[in-house]
């Protein structure tokens, strides 16, 4: 059984890695800052909401791109929303793909859009897995009686 200190070290290392690899940016730190005793699960709640919203948006995007006549305005609106919410939680790589996606929408470039959809799905899936791992590590630290050392 890992000691509290070891678990905390694991958590810190993992978090730093996510930042270095660009999966998370400073906005994620902002979320942590907003969390307090009155709302101790704030970050998990917001991120869970992000997962739900994003999955719905990705479904809508896939459907929209399969249509006979593609509605680029609708697609742009969805991507705009995804860009906004990923930016709010600090999911930097997802946000970046969304920027390129919107450009292709403007150009009405169907291939570009399809490529971006594929990319954004991938980035979303990656950040989701990583955040879930992060939260699992946090729970381990707390269960072992430690506290989350934030900011890192």
């Amino acid at each position: 059984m890992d000691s509290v200190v070891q678990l905390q070290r694991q958590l810190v290392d993992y978090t730093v890695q996510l930042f270095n690899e660009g999966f998370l940016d400073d906005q994620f730190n902002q979320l942590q800052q907003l969390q307090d005793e009155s709302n101790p699960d704030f970050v998990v709640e917001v991120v869970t909401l992000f997962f739900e919203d994003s999955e719905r948006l990705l479904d809508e995007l896939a459907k929209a791109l399969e249509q006979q006549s593609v509605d680029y305005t609708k697609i742009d609106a969805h991507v705009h929303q995804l860009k906004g919410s990923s930016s709010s939680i600090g999911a930097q790589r997802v946000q970046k793909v969304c920027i390129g996606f919107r450009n292709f929408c403007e150009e009405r470039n169907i291939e570009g859009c399809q490529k971006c959809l594929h990319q954004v799905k991938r980035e979303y899936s990656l950040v989701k897995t990583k955040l879930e791992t992060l939260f699992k590590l946090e729970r381990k630290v707390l269960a072992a009686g430690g506290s989350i050392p934030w900011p890192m």
Partner: protein
Amino acid sequence: MLGMWKSNAPDEFVCIKFDMEISEGSSLSDVASSTTNSSGRRQNSAEVKEGQSFSMCKRLVQMMQGNIWISLSPLGFAQGMTLVLRFQIHPSYGRAVFSPGTSSEQPNSNPQFRGLHVILADDDHVNRMVTKKLLEKLGCEVTAVSSGSECLSALSSAENSFILVVLDLQMPEMDGFEVATRIRKFRSRNWPLIVAVTASAEDNVWERCLRMGMNGVIRKPVLLQGMADELQRVLQRAREQF
């Protein structure tokens, strides 16, 4: 002459007294007139007849929990008028915001905007949740809505407490500009205060917002310090204009 003193009520009210002098030449015939009886004896102040407009004023003032009265000269002529008005003291977000040196403190350890009632309009769940928490962290009381039309109805049903609207510009049904235009149509230029939130990095967004009657702009992503700074600036400007 203006005097101010605290009433006995615990920290809730302040009384302000206005003393007005009536100079010799002026006529107070529409305010009050004193009558003398046939024997020429002086009347006491209780028998000074009050003119109709003065009675109206007195009624209004008393409804405002104040008082108004005429003071008489020794000869029984009106020589002055005193007006006392009682004002309720509102939560002092104003004092906290304008005191120097607050910027050096962590915004989340010092809720500078305690009591500020904010309506937040943003159609995105995640953004709404994050911005709401951020505003609450700064001490605001937040009502969060997800569309422009909900924002307008929340405003019309709100109590008359101080209100600031934080408005996402890019909402699908009714965008922030239209909401602001509608708000300004029926309300004064500075109440409620409107702060726009936009992802746009264009230079003319600020100008456009100002033209629409908004009081401030914040760029996304919204940060705690950024929001605190802009709210402080907007409140400061509003105060200067009163």
